């Protein structure tokens, strides 16, 4: 079997296996898997509204996945995407509310504010890693908590003590009347174009620029990079900042697109943490992130329909979704078996 066929077969078989085991879980728990999966399918592709909402859900996953993947490529583990997303969310909402500007300035300004906020938030762990060799995992985890509670305080201040700020000005909104008419008033917004553009940006930085060449070299071998005259510390910080900027943009998607406001949060959104899985599913490549985010977003949104349409409790749904993702993530096991059976055939 040629390598290309294996590469396509692996994810397909993984999804099928995940669905099968998920079905077993549903049967054992006394629910109808056929009804469950048709509810899932309808929840994703059922009508123009669900399709719109599914794509809306994929949008922030694309960016959080890119954020994790980008840091990974430079050998850094950015667990702080969640926090960077939160500060990005707040920054975009604040700019969206506080300023009165024409749209061609206001909207880009709000988006850039989110990217800058996320980038700055990631700059701190980057700096600590580069200068003091503090492990970025610890710092980014802690920065997540700081982000959560700091943005909560700031949100209350902006909202005059209320839990939710007012709606952002229309000049800063990503809302799309065209998409609303197309998708039966789903919350699908123009942010998907920004997310897809960032997929291209990541690919371009890594594969086309000297900066990308350096970032990858540092990720693989710091000593050889230093020997070749690269500034290893600068590259570590830069990688974290770019990663954080992607994460901040994910926050902007929520602030300017989906919700149009910022609110006090009792806990994390999970989008940043799911970004780790999205990046890993996509093998840390830009195109892979598109695949991972699509899978994640579709399952996340589509599964909301399962309790309503098939009467399956939310807990079982979570297990089923987790199983599907688990099997996709374990693709290497399937690859192993494919390659092995292949070898046996060749030997005969």
């Amino acid at each position: 079997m040629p390598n290309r066929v294996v590469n396509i077969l692996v994810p397909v078989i993984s999804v099928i296996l995940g669905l099968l085991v998920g079905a077993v879980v549903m049967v054992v728990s006394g629910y109808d898997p056929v009804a469950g999966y048709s509810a899932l399918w309808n929840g994703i592709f059922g009508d123009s509204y669900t399709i719109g909402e599914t794509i809306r859900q994929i949008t922030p996953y694309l960016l959080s996945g890119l954020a994790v993947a980008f840091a990974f490529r430079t050998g850094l583990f950015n667990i702080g995407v969640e926090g960077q997303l939160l500060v990005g969310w707040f920054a975009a909402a604040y700019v969206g509310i506080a300023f009165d500007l024409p749209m061609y300035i206001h909207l880009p300004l709000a988006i850039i504010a989110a990217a800058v906020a996320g980038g700055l938030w990631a700059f701190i762990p980057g700096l600590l890693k580069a200068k003091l060799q503090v492990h970025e995992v610890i710092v980014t985890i802690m920065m997540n908590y700081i982000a959560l509670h700091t943005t909560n305080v700031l949100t209350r201040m902006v909202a005059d003590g209320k839990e939710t700020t007012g709606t952002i000005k229309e000049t800063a909104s990503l809302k799309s009347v065209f998409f609303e008419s197309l998708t039966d008033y789903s919350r699908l917004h123009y942010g998907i174009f920004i997310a897809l553009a960032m997929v291209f940006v990541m690919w371009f930085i890594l594969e086309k620029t000297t900066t990308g060449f350096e970032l990858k070299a540092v990720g693989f071998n710091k000593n050889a990079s230093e020997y070749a005259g690269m500034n290893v510390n600068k590259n570590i910080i830069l990688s974290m900042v770019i990663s954080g900027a992607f994460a901040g943009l994910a926050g902007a998607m929520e602030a300017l697109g989906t919700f149009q406001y910022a609110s006090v949060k009792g806990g994390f959104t999970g989008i940043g943490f799911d970004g780790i899985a999205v990046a890993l599913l996509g093998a840390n490549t830009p195109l892979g992130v598109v695949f991972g985010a699509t899978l994640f977003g579709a399952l996340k949104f589509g599964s909301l329909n399962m309790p309503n349409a098939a009467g399956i409790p939310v807990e079982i749904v979570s297990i089923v979704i987790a199983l599907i993702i688990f099997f996709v993530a374990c693709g290497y096991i399937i690859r192993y078996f494919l390659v092995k059976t292949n070898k046996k055939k060749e030997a005969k």
Partner: protein
Amino acid sequence: MEYVIEMLGIRKEFGSFVANDNITLQLKKGEIHALLGENGAGKSTLMNVLFGLYQPEAGEIKVKGKTVKITDPNVANDLGIGMVHQHFMLVENFTVTENIILGNELTKSGVIDIKDAAKKIQSLSEMYGLAVDPYAKIEDISVGMQQRVEILKTLYRGAEILIFDEPTASLTPQEIIELIQIMKRLIQEGKSIIIITHKLKEIMDVSDRVTVIRKGEGIGTVITAETNPNELASLMVGRQVDFTTVKVDANPTDDALVIKNLVVTDYRGVERVKDLSLTVRKGEILGIAGIDGNGQSELIEAITGLRKSKSGSISINGKDITNKKPRKVTESGIGHIPQDRHKHGLVLDFPIGHNIALQTYYENPISKNGIMNYGKVSELAQKIIREYDVRTQGEYTPARALSGGNQQKAIIGREIERNPELLIAALPTRGLDVGAIEFIHQRLIEQRDKGKAVLLLSFELDEVMNVSDRIAVIHDGHIVDTVLPKETTEQELGLLMAGQSTKETVTKQGDTKHAE
């Protein structure tokens, strides 16, 4: 004649590539049998077949006359075959005993019986004169000692037949002598040994018979006493090989690299280079001879900007480069073949083509305004691959997949192509075979003949004597003396390396002009 191991007509294929073809190796009881071949000739593959890591496509293996099928390393262990790997398989922060019993732990009602194992290891160590402390931690003992732990590991598991894979690659000359004594001791105690190597001198010193393989094919077996290094080399390479590097006399002109009163400390702040002065002139190769660990690495790192120097000055063609960043040093006209090609020389997961562009990726025409031109990367890579005879499937092959010699040729190509004023070659031929060594020496001499300065660091006396025009001997961070290869002997160099000055009038430290 009784053979303990017979490998008859072994053939091993990887896809369409034939790594071993019709190789026969017969090991007599109590002999040291050398397996000789260039890098990539298939020595390791053959031994991995014997050790059960690979299954041969054809041929048979007999142990003590009985045909066996070695399906995995455990079977090999049970048959009394033990392997001493080139890259030691040791857990750094475990003790010697813990490492040796790893995977084979003796337990008393579920608890590991370290004491018993240590006692057994102690007695084995004494029996073979290994002098290993069972309770020492691996990270605290020398490389030579670690190798003895590997030997003990095989003995502890009852090995009768020991395979040594390139055992001298990382040893100092003194450790090599000790290893040879240990091998002879093992033979006396009735063990049999296969030694994989491409170092002819060692083969002549230690082995009884030699089996030669070339490009995967068995060339034949000869008795060591009836052959000589020249014959072995031509058997191995398939053509005549020059040992004494042919070169015309040097024509040194102006000073290129001038080091004055340099002091360099290591990461603990201990001075490793102490008030060292040294000059390399254009058109000469200056060899630095010395035993590993006398400040050579720190010296080179200080010159190339990888390590800060504490005091003193370094200049190249009159330009001061003391404590400049590596990029600045490189741009001042210094090419550097690093001591550890895996650590500093290459990004192993990058394609070999990217590695060839590693020093010039940010310059026109490889990139413009921060945008890479990968077409130009390929062009440069193909040129280097062609001109420096780098054997690879193509410029997109990961550097990791190349053999050591070809990796080194790519690095040398990369550095020489930039046309540096000074080429620093640190252990440029470490672990390479005769053919590659010859190639690399010629390139160094070529640079010299073009009027460039070459600084050669080597632990091998042969290399220093053959290639250099002047030899600076380093000991304990000082240049003890500077001598001319024609006027010195290995004995004299050896004494100098040990820190003894041969002249009654003690040479003024660091004065290099002196020896002419």
